[in-house]
C-alpha cells in the first residue's frame, strides 16, 4: 500500500518555501519521498513525531533483515510482489544447514566443511548454501555452548541459534553477538522475559507462533520495544500448511500493507520431513512459496545443486533475459582440430548448445556472441546477430589462435547471414550452416568433425 506524494505533502510544514531540502517546494520534496529518491531527514522542520510517522509510512511493505556480518552476511525480505511475473523476487532465501549438539564431533566438522566447500559453478555464478543453524537438542547447556564456540571459531557463515531454553539461547548469543546471529524461537511464552535480553545486544530474532494470526501480537510487542529485525515462523506442520501460511503472510504484507506481518519468514523442513529426498522436495515448495530462510537437516552434492538451481531460477529477474559472458567456451577438452560453433548469449541458448555438444562427446569451441540475452533468431531480427557483428566477434575473441582450421558452424536459423559473415571475415573462414535445432547436433557434429580431421 504505497503512500502517495499528495498524502505526504499534508504532513510537511508547507507554507515555508525554505528549499533547505534541496527541492523548490514541499510538494516536489513529497513526490521524491514517495518514489524513494530522498530521505525524510532532509527536512529540518519536521517534528520528531511526524518524522517517525513518515518513515514508517514510507518503509517498504516487507522489512529487509540482515543476518550475519561482513561479506558473508545474508539479506532477506524487502520483497514487493506476490508473483514473480508482477516484477521480480529480490532476495533469494538463505539455505541453512542444521547442526545439532547431539551430533558427533566428526559429523559437526563435516557439516562445517560442507557449508564452506560445497559450491557449484553455474553460468558464471557460484552457487552455495548460506547459513549454519545450531540446534540445542542435547539438554546439556555446556555442550551447546561449546558447539557455538567451535562454529564461531571455524566458520564465518551467518548463524541461527535454535534453543527452546531461553537462558541457553542468550548465553549462546553472548558468544557470537558480534556476528549478528538470528535467535530462534521467540514465542508468546518467552517474549516478555526475552525483550530486555534481546535489547542488551540487538540481533535479529525469529518468532514462532502456532498460526499466522498468533504472530501479530508478538511482532506488535517487539516493535513497541523497538525490535524490528524480525523473521516469522507461522509454525506450519506440513507442506500444505506452509503454502497457506506463507501465502497469507506475503499477501498481508504486500496487498494489505499490514505492517505486523511485513517481515521475511523462516521455514524448517528439517523438522517436517524425515526422509532426505522428501525434505528437499519440501524445501522446493518453500523456494517457490516465499520463504526467507530454509533450514535443512543435511544435504549432499546431489540434493544441494538442484535446490540452489531452483532458487536461482525462481529469483531470476523475469524482466531481463539471463545472459552469459561473450567469449569462446571450451566444451569437453577441445584441441586445434576441434570444430568451432557460434551462437547467441541468451543463457538458455548457450545451455542447450553446450549440453547438446557435450552429449555428442565431440570436444568443441562454442563461441558466444553478445546479443543482449536474446535467442539466435530474435537477436538476428534485432540486429544483434548480423553477419558483420558476428564476424567482428569471431576475429577478436581469439578462437582463431586455438584451431588450425578455418571452419565455422553457424546456427541453422540464421543461415541467411552466411554471405555477409564470409565477407566480414575476409573469406578466410569457411562457413557451414548447422542444424536449426540443437537436437540436430547429435547427428551433425560427429559427421562434421570426422570430415574436419580426415
Amino acid at each position, binding site marked *: 500500500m504505497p503512500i502517495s506524494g499528495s498524502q505526504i505533502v499534508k504532513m510537511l510544514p508547507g507554507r515555508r518555501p525554505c528549499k533547505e531540502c534541496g527541492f523548490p517546494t514541499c510538494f516536489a520534496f513529497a513526490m521524491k519521498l514517495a518514489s524513494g529518491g530522498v530521505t525524510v531527514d532532509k527536512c529540518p522542520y519536521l517534528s520528531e513525531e511526524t518524522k517517525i510517522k513518515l518513515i514508517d509510512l514510507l518503509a517498504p511493505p516487507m522489512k529487509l533483515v540482515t543476518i550475519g556480518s561482513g561479506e558473508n552476511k545474508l539479506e532477506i525480505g524487502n520483497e514487493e510482489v506476490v508473483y514473480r511475473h508482477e516484477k521480480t523476487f529480490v532476495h533469494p532465501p538463505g539455505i541453512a544447514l542444521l547442526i545439532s549438539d547431539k551430533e558427533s564431533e566428526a559429523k559437526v566438522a563435516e557439516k562445517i566443511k560442507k557449508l564452506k566447500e560445497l559450491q557449484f559453478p553455474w553460468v558464471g555464478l557460484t552457487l552455495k548454501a548460506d547459513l549454519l543453524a545450531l540446534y540445542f537438542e542435547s539438554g546439556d547447556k555446556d555442550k551447546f555452548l561449546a558447539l557455538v564456540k567451535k562454529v564461531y571459531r571455524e566458520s564465518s557463515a551467518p548463524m541461527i541459534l535454535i534453543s527452546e531454553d531461553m537462558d541457553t539461547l542468550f548465553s549462546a548469543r553472548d558468544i557470537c553477538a558480534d556476528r549478528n546471529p538470528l535467535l530462534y524461537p521467540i514465542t508468546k511464552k518467552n517474549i516478555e522475559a526475552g525483550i530486555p535480553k534481546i535489547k542488551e545486544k540487538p540481533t535479529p530474532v525469529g518468532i514462532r507462533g502456532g498460526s*499466522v494470526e498468533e504472530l*501479530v501480537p508478538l511482532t506488535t510487542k517487539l516493535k513497541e520495544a523497538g525490535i524490528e529485525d524480525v523473521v516469522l515462523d507461522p509454525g506450519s506442520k506440513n507442506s500444505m500448511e506452509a503454502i497457506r501460511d506463507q501465502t497469507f503472510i506475503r499477501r498481508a504484507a504486500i496487498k494489505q500493507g*499490514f505492517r505486523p506481518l511485513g517481515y521475511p519468514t523462516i521455514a524448517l523442513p528439517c523438522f517436517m520431513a524425515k526422509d532426505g529426498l522428501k525434505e528437499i522436495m519440501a524445501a522446493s515448495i518453500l523456494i517457490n512459496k516465499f520463504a526467507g530462510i530454509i533450514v535443512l537437516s543435511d544435504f549432499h552434492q546431489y540434493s544441494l545443486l538442484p*535446490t540452489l538451481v531452483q532458487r536461482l*531460477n525462481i529469483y531470476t529477474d523475469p524482466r531481463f533475459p539471463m545472459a552469459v559472458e561473450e567469449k569462446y567456451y571450451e566444451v569437453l577438452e577441445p584441441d586445434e582440430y576441434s570444430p568451432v560453433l557460434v551462437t547467441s548469449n541468451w543463457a538458455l541458448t548457450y545451455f542447450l548448445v553446450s*549440453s547438446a555438444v557435450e552429449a555428442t562427446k565431440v570436444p568443441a569451441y562454442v563461441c558466444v556472441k553478445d546479443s543482449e540475452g536474446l535467442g539466435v533468431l530474435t537477436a538476428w531480427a534485432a540486429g544483434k546477430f548480423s553477419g558483420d557483428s558476428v564476424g567482428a566477434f569471431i576475429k577478436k575473441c581469439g578462437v582463431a589462435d586455438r584451431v588450425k582450421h578455418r571452419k565455422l558452424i553457424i546456427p541453422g536459423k540464421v543461415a541467411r547471414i552466411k554471405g555477409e559473415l564470409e565477407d566480414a571475415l575476409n573469406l578466410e573462414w569457411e562457413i557451414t550452416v548447422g542444424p536449426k535445432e540443437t537436437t540436430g547436433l547429435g547427428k551433425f557434429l560427429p559427421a562434421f568433425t570426422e570430415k574436419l580431421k580426415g
Partner: protein
Amino acid sequence: MEYRAPIESYSGVVREITIGKGEKALKIGGENILPFHFFDEGSLPNPPIFALEVWDMEPTDWPEWLLEPFKDVVSDPIKWAKRCENFGANAISFYLTSTDPATKDSSADEAAALTKNVAEAITIPLIVYGSGDDKKDAEVLPKVAEVCDGMNLLIGPVLKENYEVVGKAILAHGHLAIAQTPLDINLLKELNVKLCHFFPAERIVIDPLSSALGYGMEYSFTLIERVKQIGIIVKDSMTQMPMIANLGGECWKTKQAKESKEQGLLWEGITALSLLLAGANILILRHPEALRLIKETIGGEIWQK
C-alpha cells in the same frame, strides 16, 4: 491493527475436461482457485494427475537408473504401460517416437494399430504424443485418431503448422487435443483462437512447453502461472483450458540427471513440483520414484478436496 486472513476469490473457471471413456474416464480442470490455494474461496474439484511415459520403441539415451524399473519391458509397450499403471500413474503418456523421420520413420498405420492395443490393454486414460515433426504428425495423428475412434484419447502435439488437419481428425473421431506452442503466451492464445474456429474449446488442453530445472524452468513456471491467473482472475476464455506439463523428457535429457540417480530424481521432482505449483493440471514424468516422491510431498489430503 486487526488481522484479517487475506482470503481471495475469483470469478473465472478452468474448463473441466474428461479424458478416456467409461470406467477409464478421468476428469481434470474445473478449478476456480489458484493452484494449491485451498484456503481461498472456491474449489479444485479435480486434483492434478500424473502420467508416466511409455515409448513405442526402446529408448537409447536413458541413464541406467531411469531404465531400471522398466528394463525387462521396454521392448513391449503394452507390458511397459501396465507396469506404469502398477506404479500408480493416473494416465499413460504414449510417445510415437519411432514415427520420427529422424529415427525409424515407422508408418502411420503401425503407430495407430499399436496405440489402439496399448489403449485397450490399460485401465487408465491414454495420452498420445506424436514425434513433433509437424509433417509426419499430420499423417500419423489423424490415423491414430481414426483407428482409436471414440476412445476419447488426449492427442498431440497440435501445432500451428498442422492444427487444421490434425485438429479435424481428432474432433471427427471423438478425442481431445493438446495445443502446443513454444513458451509464449501470445502464440498460445493465437493457436487456441485459430483452433476454436472449428474445434470446441472444452476439448483442448494447453501444452505451453516445459523446460527443465536450470534449462529455462523459470520461463515455463511463469508462463503457466500467468496463463492460469489470466484464466481465473481476468477470465480470458482462451486461457481457461487445463494445462499439461510434459517435463520428464526434458529433465532426464540434462547432464545433471545423468550424473546420479538421486540427482535425476530431484531434477525431475523439483521441476514437476514447481510446475504443479504454477498451475499444471497434468504432469508427465518418466521415473516412478519421482512420481512417488511428489505424491508423498504434496500429501494425501488434497486428493479429497
